């Protein structure tokens, strides 16, 4: 049985009050949900929280799911919206607490995030330390965090979640051509980092 058909069967059962079916759906999608959120929000405890909230939303709104798109598309839409709300909230919190946090040196994470927002800073530091592939992988992972929001979301959905462009367009509400442009730019950024790394070695 295809994954989509299995999902549809589980959803029908959940709609009829079958809690075991919800357990199966949870088991099937929990890892994907958690790692997807982790790639978009970076903090493990927040990713866990968001992924769990995603399942709560699925359960609460399952009667509204008509199956026009696949469950997977619907679920990613829920998770993506949760991650976007999370970023909006953090942006506002950081904005209003910025001076206070910086003065008292309490928000180290924000300092880190500000450092990360300067794309090439880690390359300017000490290139001799970046001597193997593991370090390059880490560098690329960090570079992903500095991508603009839409590029990061689309690259994550394509590269890690292995979704089709058409599915990503459905999840994000963007045209397929726009999705391709964001993906192209994200990959080009990664290429640039790889190139700079090689030049510095």
């Amino acid at each position: 049985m295809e994954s989509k058909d299995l999902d549809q069967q589980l959803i029908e059962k959940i709609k009829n009050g079958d809690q075991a079916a919800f357990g199966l759906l949870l088991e099937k999608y929990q890892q994907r949900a958690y790692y997807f959120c982790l790639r978009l929000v970076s903090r493990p405890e927040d990713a866990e929280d968001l992924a769990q909230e995603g399942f709560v939303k699925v359960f609460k709104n399952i009667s509204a799911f008509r199956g026009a798109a696949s469950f997977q598309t619907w679920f990613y839409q829920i998770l993506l919206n949760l991650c976007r709300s999370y970023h909006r909230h953090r942006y506002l919190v950081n904005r209003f607490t910025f001076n206070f946090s910086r003065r008292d040196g309490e928000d180290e994470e924000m300092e880190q995030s500000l450092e990360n927002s300067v794309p090439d800073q880690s390359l300017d530091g000490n290139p001799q330390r970046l001597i193997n592939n593991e370090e390059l992988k880490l560098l690329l992972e960090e570079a992903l965090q500095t991508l603009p929001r839409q590029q990061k979301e689309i690259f994550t959905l394509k590269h890690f979640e292995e979704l089709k462009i058409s599915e990503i367009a459905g999840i994000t509400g963007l045209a397929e051509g726009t999705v391709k442009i964001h993906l192209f730019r994200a990959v080009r950024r990664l290429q640039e980092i790889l190139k700079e790394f090689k030049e510095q070695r």
Partner: protein
Amino acid sequence: MECKKIQSDLVNYYYQELAGSARSAIARHLETCNACRQTYVQIKKALAMVAKEQLEKDKSSAFWQDFQYKVYRRLAAEEASKSWWRDLLVPRRLAPVLAGAVMLLLIIVTSTRLVKNGPEMTSSDLQLAQELELIENYDLIQDLEILENLPEAEQLRG
């Protein structure tokens, strides 16, 4: 010009988003064009470095059990809060009792006010009451009673 178009499609080619003639056209071009082939190799290398499996190995089964437990706990909390609100907003079973209690309360409040304040009297009402009191106590009334009981009066009535 052709190279520019090809290079803009290399990411889609890598992710196998192109099919049919578009895909085979790029494959043919890569065999002959060194520059585009180099670009494609760079794309492949960069994307290969962004490892998919890097994150997926770091969680134990205990973590996932705990994850599920937390989801169910959230759902239970959600359900409990929903029931609480429903009972508060739409108390179907308690509705008649609640309505009765409200009516009773209204009656108590209204009657207490009436007893406490009584009906309001105007100045003309007061004057009339005083006059009636005066007439009731008048001696003439008693005298009239005596006259009524006289034998002559009884004869006249008979």
